[in-house]
């Protein structure tokens, strides 16, 4: 595979589709959560409105260069993750820049945004940012474990590190999905998935509105807008990886939409059912439930 200029508009197109879908997804999930709680929930276009509002706001405030760059890092991480992973299997248009790296790149690039974000929040100087960061990092690294193990189990299973080839190996009926060929890995990965989705019950570090502790509290206006954009893109990007690795990938957009929605739903459901975990509780959760499964999946491949 090599680079051609046409890939740039193609990639932008993919990005746009994913973004729009992501906005709706976010909205729908929130609405579902509200309904489940007996509330009405937000309007369908509310997320758009929020974003637009934040992009329109102007701020004169910065706490320094890393503070300024933090959201940029964050969003670069999200966008990059989408672009380094093939979105639609077999589609030249939506291959994006997957040829630059493989599964390993995707795994490690996840940290890029996190790192930048944490740095930015750190420079704000607010002690609560620091608290949020340590919680976030602690939980995230723990949650990544079962995921990484499962991913590696999969690449061992298919003897490749190329995402495209992994998807290719799962074609030919849903029984050849990893979900069925290696269910343990999938379970492990899904446990990790819950942790990285930044949703309840694993969202204590994120500073949902009622706990004013966490990086987003420090950011406002356009900074916040960039981060919100990331909040929309990033889960989709992750789900795409999951979908590609475990659920047979997507050969066209409808399948893509469906699968992403369903996977997203998993985390939403769990969030509705469970109360919020403290960080060390969630670390233990991942280590006790996720980790052994991950190890098991690697051993039995």
């Amino acid at each position, binding site marked *: 595979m090599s680079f051609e200029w046409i890939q740039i508009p193609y990639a932008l197109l993919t990005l746009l589709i994913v973004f729009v879908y992501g906005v709706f997804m976010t909205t729908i999930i929130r609405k579902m959560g509200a309904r489940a709680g007996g509330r009405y929930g937000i309007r369908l276009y509310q997320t758009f409105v929020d974003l637009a509002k934040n992009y329109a706001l102007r701020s*004169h405030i910065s706490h320094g260069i890393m503070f300024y760059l933090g959201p940029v890092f964050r969003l670069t991480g999200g966008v990059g993750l989408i672009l380094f992973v093939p979105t639609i299997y077999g589609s030249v248009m939506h291959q994006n820049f997957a040829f*630059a790296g*493989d599964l*390993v790149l995707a795994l490690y690039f996840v940290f890029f945004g996190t790192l930048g974000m944490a740095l930015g929040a750190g*420079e704000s100087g607010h002690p609560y940012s620091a608290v949020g960061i340590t919680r976030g990092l602690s939980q995230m690294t723990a949650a990544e474990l079962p995921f990484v*193990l499962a991913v590696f189990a999969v690449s061992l299973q298919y003897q490749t590190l190329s995402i495209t080839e992994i998807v290719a190996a799962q074609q030919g009926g849903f029984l050849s999905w990893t979900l069925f060929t290696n269910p343990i890995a999938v379970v492990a990965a899904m446990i990790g998935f819950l942790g990285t989705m930044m949703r309840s019950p694993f969202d204590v570090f994120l500073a949902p509105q009622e706990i004013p502790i966490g990086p987003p509290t420090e950011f406002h206006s356009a900074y916040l807008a960039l981060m919100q954009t990331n909040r929309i893109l990033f889960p989709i990007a992750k789900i795409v990886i999951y979908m590609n690795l475990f659920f047979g990938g997507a050969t066209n957009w409808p399948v893509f939409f469906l699968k992403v929605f369903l996977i997203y739903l998993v985390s939403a459901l769990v969030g509705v059912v469970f109360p919020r975990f403290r960080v060390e509780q969630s*670390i233990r959760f991942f280590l006790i439930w996720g980790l052994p499964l991950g190890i098991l999946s690697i051993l039995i491949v």
Partner: protein
Amino acid sequence: MVSAIFIIVVGLGAAFALGLLKDSWRNGAFALTMAALAVMSWISISWLGALASGAAQPTDILTAGVQPPFAINLRVGLAEAGLLSVITLTGLLSALYLRDALMQQGRRSMAVLLIAIMALSGIVLTRDIFNLFVFFELMVISTGGLVLLSDDERAIGAGFKYLVVTQVISILLLVGIIFTYHAQGSLNIDDFAAQPLAAKGAGLAFFLLLMALVLELKPFPANGWALDIYESAHPGFSAIFSAASGTAAVYAADKVLATGGAEWLPLATFIGLFTFLASNILALRQDNDRRLLGYSSVAQIGLVLAVIGQRDILGDQFLYIAGGILIAHAVAKAGLFWISGVITRRELTAWTVLRLNPPLVVAFATFLAMLIGLPPFPGFYAKWELAHHLVAEGRVAVLVLILIGALIEAGYLFRWFGLAIKREAPVARPKYAPGKVLVIYAAALLGWYAGYRWGALSQYDNLLQAMPLMVALGFLLIEGLPARIKNVIAIAALCVWFWLSYGSFDPLQMIFGVIFMIGGAVIFLASFHETGRRLGFYPPAMLMYAGLAMLIVAESSFAFFAAWEVLTIGSYFLILRGKKSEPHALSYLMFSLGGAFAILLGFALAAGGTAPLAIADLAQVTGAVAPWVFVLLAIGFMTKTAAIGLHIWLPGAHAEAEADVSPMVSGVLLKAGLYGMFLLLMTMGRQHLFGVDLTYVLLWIGALSALLGNLMAIFQEDAKRLLAYSSIGQMGYALFGLAMMNHLGWLMALMFVINHYVYKSLLFLSVGGVAKRTGTRDMYRMGGLIKLMPLSFIAVLIGIITMSGVPPLSGFGGRWIFYNAIMTADARLPMVLVFLSGPIAFLYLFRLIHTIFLGQLKDEHRQLKDAPFWILLPQMIYVAFLLGFAVLPGMALRRVDAYIGEHFTEQGLSWEGLTITSEFGYWSPVQIMIVIGTIFTLLFLLLLALNHKAQWVKQFNIVYAAERPFRPETTHFAWNFFAPYRRALGFLLAPLVTRFWGAITNALHETAEFTRKLYTGNGQTYAVHVLVFVVVLYLVAGGIS
């Protein structure tokens, strides 16, 4: 050639002539004494020279004009001449040293001194057993006289105890002599050898004879009297007592033992080893310098006795080995006692006063190194040869015990050195008597000369002619120059050495060579920030680099081991320079020496006794011994890479070192261990022990190191400690890669070698610079430094991105190769551990940058400037390199990849254009960089467009959502940063390893504390000990008839 009997004649004649002088002519008397000693020394040395060069043959000196055995005869051979030289020179120098005491006490004491030296020479020369007794008694009585030279009144008691014990000894000796005579019909030692004694029913007689001579060697536990003398006598005399008397007594025992036949050798070995070990353990608890030296003397003599016990297998090398140990001990011990004489107080910490006189510190270090047998001193060569001979004959147990003893000895000696270097020194420089100091320097020079001679005699290249070592030692001579000039020379030396030698390097050597030499030179740039003379920095630093330089070109096991020891010593001294590094430097040294001994044992086993062994020939080692060789060598190398279990030295050593030393010992030095592992695995490959694949074990060790090293790192409050622990983890990765034994695993290990050098040097320098400015290494005392120290921040940022493996920097390349490598590895469980450690690394790295540079600035740091230019310069070089290496990893790795391909059948990577492809995936660093860069730039521009008027706002102007901090200091959340992690995973951090090693150390100390109660100080008890010693051995030997 003057007959050697004139040593005796001159000594006696001068002693008698002293009586003719008026008591008030003390200067004249002293001059006469010195002249006599000088003549005696000259005779000995001229014999030594003539015999060594072959100009003279071993000569028998007849007395009374009658052939032996009917008259007493003397003999001068090479051994005798050597020992005579030691004895007479010690006498000469000690006399000079004792000048004040001798002058005060008058000519009688000078006569006693002369007779003492004469008697010791007689012990060496004589071939008659009863004559030996006479000389022994002369030695005893003159010792009794010389003890009185001490100002310490306790010496009288010690002298009396000595006399009591020698009475018992002479009784045994006389009984032994007469019955031996009865059995042999002769008193001549040479006759004994002709007719084995035991055969004639004189075993018991010989036993008593031997015991008497052995008791003169002060064997444990029958040696309390000797220690009391060492403690209380005048140090000038103690030097004689240890160096000269010990030497003579050992030779006497050897002479007699040689005639007894091989069946007595195990007894000597047993006594020697027992004494060596026990005395060294006891010395652990000593805080009186002279008593400690006494224990060490006793131990060393025990060692020589043990070596004598091996004379049946040492053959031609016996003299070389035993002589090497004996001479090293004599010179060193005399030197140390002499030094102790210029120090006024007796506790070990009083030696700090030496610091005010740096050449004395060099002498001190020289003597310690000689005692322990570090290169390039005679003991080193002796140790090497001894190990090989012992292994060749299957006496591994003996060797192991010797090495354990040596390790303990190194422990207390270097602890002492640490105390002297690190504890608070007095301010006022004491006045040293120039004569005394001169004597000390003379001993040190003699030590070096002996090292040179032994090197020349060895079958290997003389270490003191090895270019790198010469350069390093040359730095001792230019210590007076300003630091910056020395720094220029040091950098030039490293570059020149690289330039001279790189032509012959293979790609592997090239990578290590570049890191050791060029990498070392870059770190030296940081040293430019030091002004003044910076005493004691360059010689050890260059010693370490010399060792490293010699290591990569080493082709034989000897060269390798010598280089290994050299770099160990150099780095020890270097680490010791840190402010609070005393205990850490010691534990570093202990582990390193322990590792070195494992390597020695491994090489000896591999060689099967026929040293030298080419490193490449390790591949030919097969059979049952091969896995053990592998294990020993691996342990040796892993102590340097601080694999888990052997790691406890590392954090302190690296953290407490100076700002520019930490990168040297971390970035550069750790690679020596990896280089060793590379060689080991390259030559020996997979080995199986008890059916276990040893590389599999290594895999586990690597993985555990990676996990636990990282885990420990995240809970450190001290920034340099954090980095140090992280090194454990990083080396674990590299070890893991190597142990996978496949192409990509090795490539990954090499990638780690390069990356770890760069980012760890970078981070240590940045953190060192920050610590220099802030005056603390505790991260929670810092914060918000990003604006004040932007360059340091950038350096750390790039460093941690690389290290954590986040794309797009080169650390990712390491991870990528790693993932590809484990695709083919079959060991899954250790792999999991490595997975676990990855994210954890991310945690501590983030903490590093966050707590130091982000958050709120501390009040007291508001005026700080960025780190000094010279510390920043290498950092910027590293940053540039990291960025370049990220884009073009192929520039270093392609050739190595091909080189590794020669060793593994499976395919490596393909390097087409800018994309690197393995059979499992692909990696295109340039494209990744471009994509990320583009996205980042676009988003940045977007944000700029939206928020271009943003201006810096003070942190306290932010609106706190819930509250406003009452006191700004309290708002920096950095202490116990990853508390949740600790709560969840803290149990993994139980300091089991520390406890384990601590328990061993404690057990040794407790044993020492308990055992030394034996030495009640009661002379009668000591006499009982002597009898117990004899009786127990009599019973053990099964009642010899």
